């Protein structure tokens, strides 16, 4: 021992740290040690460098910063002795990773060590390279590693093989250099080399199609034989695990065979026998055996079809599934997920067991099972499965409910065949787990309810009952509030009673009670309260006897701190008090919500949240449902392009857009403008605060609302609302693309030539528009419409009609003909002249209606065109 040495031994430091009673004490000890180590580093102390590094590694494991020791690793690696190098490489792997630039400095030492005469030093270098090398190092040192694949000692060959795995993953271009040496490793007898060689081949196949092709041709038979040998080998104590010789080798061979057999009938054929043997002969009472069976099943499922083998595999999974060991059941569920694409019927047979697994006490198993059940649902079993799942929802853990609810909602929405069933199931889910239900789910429910006029009474009564039982579920409350607001009268007079219902007695006051409760619950958020206010307004007209009481309730909110609620209550009160004569017209029932639009928009807004730059949808020909995702993209561009939008930040710009979208008569800046008259106020109220609802009325909509932005969490949703607010009068369902696009017009150059568009396309008909501008009037556009018949039947009595908003004027010339030959053998053309009084501010938009007769039967197609070129 060096008499001049200071500092403690590694063992003593660990003891000192373990003796610490508090975190502060530990920090103090570590600080002291680190200071000593830094001092030693500064003095360039050679004798204790390796001990200091060992200490640093321990300190590093405790989570303290140790970057100052990185250079010490490099120094140790560069020294001559094996002990120093050993600890140096260990420190390198522990303290650094491939992203640190310091690592580059070690490349040269690594190169020297890879060529060292001491094979253990070569081993250390290979290990470090395999664990942390970066792409540059991989490129620099690949030739060395490739050479070491043929080293005399098998222990170096196996390390070199795994090192090559890392290299080809980092730099796939290098794969081709490794194909031949890797293939020759497969002929080895040494298990370590064989295992790593098989692994290298597997990874080569993943990164290089050439390697796959080569190995498939040259090595499949050899691998089958190797597997056969190891399966049939006699007891080998060195490799034996639970009576099986080297299960690790089994598994790797099976994995490589899987890759070689996938998509190649010949290769698959050559491995059938051995797979059958493994599947039938392997002992399944220990983990090792089951691991092999599991891998074998996976291989059987992936390679080209062999009916007999698949039956065998599914049977193994069935056995797994009924195993008492949770691990085995877990992997069975995992594997059935993959098997479902191959053989749904076979998996369906285990449905009952899988459903039991959904209720398991083990979260991992539950999660797997739920995903599997989700895949198993089809039209024929949806009802019992949903019933089971909903029953389980009642008793499931809180943390599992979110997943479960989402899956149930998705199943119900996807497979419901009748509306009453859908509504029933959704009500159950809402009552059980309404707080976990996503907004779009209850929006969809409202749309469905709105579209089922014969179920309005039934639904509102069921909701009334559900509310009494579980008033704490937010989204249930919202649906209840909306439905009572709309259909409250049916609740009271038991209208539209179905046979299955028990009659209930609800007075008008009871209905108002419910809304009032929803209003006063402290858990209700603004959206619910805002919806409740609207419901109250609607009820005040439907139940004149409660009008006074409703007024009292709304008056209470006139001083509400939330602007939205305050404004609503003030305005509603003035309606109730002063505008008796128009009230009943104003609060008429919502028109039926357009399901198609909703679905289209929903799918689009989902796509929008996932990846916003979704310009492709913009080019869609105009159908009824125009996606609203694309306008969003433009809006975002706009704000980033320093466009003339007044305040391009955050939600503000959305409101500014609202201002721009106002109908021409109203003020452009009117985001917060005071209500001009009772009528204006009311109209926007009709559009409620929820994105799923669309306003439609006979009077132009004026927007003075903040309401859109506050209850929406995603940036997409407010736009949805915008689209519903910015409608011109006649449109019941509009997708909002056109009004949004206007904003861009100012930014785009008005090129003199406008491209033709496909204005409308359905399975039976295509309409194309060609544009030209008369030189004398730039506001006017001449459109030549061409109609083509895509169906095999001829059309007669063909009539094309079009309607435009007020800022446009439209003139239609007579059509060239009124009959349209089948299958595109001819076309009708018709000229349109359209004048845009707001050219440059608003772009063209048009609703069209095409009527014709097919085989004497009337047919009608409708659509909206808002993909006109900008600037027309």
């Amino acid at each position, binding site marked *: 021992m060096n008499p001049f040495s200071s500092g403690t031994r590694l063992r003593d430091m660990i003891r000192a740290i373990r003796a610490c009673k508090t975190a502060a004490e530990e920090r103090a000890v570590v600080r002291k040690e680190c200071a000593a180590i830094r001092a030693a580093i500064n003095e360039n102390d050679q004798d204790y460098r390796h001990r200091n590094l*060992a200490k640093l*590694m321990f300190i590093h494991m405790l989570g303290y910063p140790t970057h100052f020791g990185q250079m010490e690793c490099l120094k140790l690696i560069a020294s001559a002795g*094996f002990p120093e190098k050993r600890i140096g490489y260990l420190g390198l792997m522990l303290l650094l990773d491939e992203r640190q630039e310091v690592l580059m400095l070690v490349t040269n030492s690594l190169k020297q060590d890879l060529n060292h005469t001491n094979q253990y030093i070569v081993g250390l270098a290979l290990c470090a390279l395999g664990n942390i090398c970066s792409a540059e190092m991989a490129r620099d040192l690949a030739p060395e590693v490739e050479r070491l694949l043929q080293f005399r000692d098998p222990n170096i060959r196996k*390390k070199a093989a795994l090192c090559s795995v890392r290299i080809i*993953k980092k730099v796939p271009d290098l794969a081709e250099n490794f194909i031949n040496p890797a293939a020759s490793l497969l002929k080895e007898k040494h298990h370590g080399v064989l*295992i*790593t060689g098989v692994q290298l081949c597997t990874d080569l196949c993943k990164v290089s199609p050439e390697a796959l092709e080569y190995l498939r041709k040259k090595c499949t038979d050899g691998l089958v034989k190797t597997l056969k040998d190891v399966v049939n080998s006699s007891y080998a104590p060195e490799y034996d695990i639970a009576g099986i010789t080297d299960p*690790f080798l089994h598994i790797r061979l099976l994995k490589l065979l899987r890759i070689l057999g996938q998509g190649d009938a010949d290769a698959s054929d050559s491995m059938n026998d051995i797979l059958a043997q493994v599947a039938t002969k392997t002992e399944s009472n220990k983990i090792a055996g089951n691991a092999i069976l599991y891998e074998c099943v996976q291989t059987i499922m992936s390679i080209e079809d062999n009916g007999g083998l698949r039956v065998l595999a599914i049977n193994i999974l069935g056995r797994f599934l009924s195993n008492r060991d949770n691990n085995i059941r877990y992997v069975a569920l995992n594997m059935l997920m993959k098997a479902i694409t191959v053989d749904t019927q076979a998996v369906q047979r285990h449905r009952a067991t899988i459903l039991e697994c959904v209720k398991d006490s083990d979260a991992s198993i539950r999660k797997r099972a739920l995903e599997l059940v989700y895949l198993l649902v089809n039209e024929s079993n949806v009802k019992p499965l949903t019933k089971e799942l909903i029953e389980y929802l009642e008793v499931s853990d809180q943390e599992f409910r979110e997943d479960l609810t989402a899956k149930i909602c998705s199943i119900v929405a996807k497979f419901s065949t009748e509306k009453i069933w859908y509504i029933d199931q959704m009500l159950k889910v809402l009552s059980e787990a309404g707080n976990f239900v996503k907004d779009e789910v209850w929006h969809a429910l409202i749309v469905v309810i709105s579209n089922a006029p014969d179920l309005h009474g039934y639904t509102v009564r069921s909701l009334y009952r559900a509310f009494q039982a579980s008033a704490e579920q937010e989204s249930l409350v919202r649906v209840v509030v909306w439905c009572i607001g709309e259909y409250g009268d049916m609740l009271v007079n038991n209208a539209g009673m179905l046979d299955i219902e028990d009659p209930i007695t609800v007075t008008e006051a009871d209905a108002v009670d419910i809304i009032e409760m929803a209003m006063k619950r402290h858990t209700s958020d603004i959206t619910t309260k805002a919806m409740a206010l609207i419901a109250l307004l609607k009820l005040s007209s439907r139940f004149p006897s409660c009008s006074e009481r409703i007024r009292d309730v709304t008056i209470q909110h006139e001083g509400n701190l939330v602007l939205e609620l305050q404004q609503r209550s003030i305005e509603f009160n003035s309606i109730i008090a002063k505008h008796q004569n128009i009230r009943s017209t104003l609060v008429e029932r919502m028109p039926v919500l357009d399901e198609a639009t909703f679905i289209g928009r929903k799918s689009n807004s989902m796509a929008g949240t996932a990846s916003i730059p979704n310009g492709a949808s913009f080019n869609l020909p105009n159908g009824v449902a125009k996606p609203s995702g694309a306008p969003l993209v433009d809006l975002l561009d706009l704000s980033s392009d320093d466009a003339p939008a007044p305040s391009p930040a955050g939600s503000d710009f959305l409101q500014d857009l609202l201002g721009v979208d106002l109908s021409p008569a109203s003020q452009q800046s009117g985001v917060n403008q005071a209500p001009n008259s009772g009528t204006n106020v009311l109209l926007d109220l009709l559009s409620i605060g929820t994105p799923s609802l669309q306003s439609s009325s006979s009077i132009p909509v004026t927007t003075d609302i903040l309401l859109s932005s506050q209850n929406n969490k995603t940036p997409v949703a407010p736009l949805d609302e915008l689209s519903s607010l910015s409608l011109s009068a006649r449109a019941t369902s509009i997708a909002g693309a056109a009004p949004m696009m206007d904003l861009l017009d100012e930014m785009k150059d008005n090129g003199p030539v406008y491209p033709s568009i496909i204005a409308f396309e359905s399975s039976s008909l295509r309409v194309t528009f060609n544009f030209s501008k008369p030189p004398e009037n730039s506001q006017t556009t001449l459109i030549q419409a061409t109609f083509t018949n895509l169906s095999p039947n001829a059309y007669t009595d063909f009539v094309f009609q079009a309607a435009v908003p007020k800022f446009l004027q439209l003139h239609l010339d007579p059509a060239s003909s009124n009959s349209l030959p089948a299958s595109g053998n001819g076309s009708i053309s018709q000229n349109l002249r359209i004048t845009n009084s707001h050219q440059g501010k608003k772009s063209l938009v048009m609703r069209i209606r095409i009527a014709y007769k097919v085989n004497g039967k009337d047919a009608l197609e409708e659509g909206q065109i808002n993909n006109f070129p900008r600037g027309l």
Partner: protein
Amino acid sequence: MIQFVLLISRQGKVRLTKWYSPYSQKERTKVLRELSGVILSRVPKLCNFVEWREYKVVYKRYASLYFCMCIDQDDNELETLEIIHHYVEILDRYFGSVCELDLIFNFHKAYYILDELLIAGELQESSKKTVARLIAAQDSLVETAKEQASSISNIIAQATK
């Protein structure tokens, strides 16, 4: 591929970490916190697999220590359990009925053994005997070097006396 190997004590102390994919120091701390929370709270008899981010973590408890390996989605969970057991058996043979304290004071040895077992997140040796032999050979190299060094320093000490 094994993304990383962790040894966590029942108290949540980290005894060994080996990362085969790059994780920054901050991410490592986060991963450790997240996973020890999930794994230590699982009661016995549950399955040994936890789904975590886009990976799976296979863990097994030996006395007071949890051995955890994070693997890819399509890796064989049961085999990973065997690999963990394989490692534990080698440790056991090396230390002679290994306990947590051995792994604390000789943490570097635990790393050396792991490095003979796994490289690049893949298994390199299925024979316990071979691993033991390789470790012993390297340990003796270190011993010889130490003896030489001490004899040299003795000579120097003698000479300078």
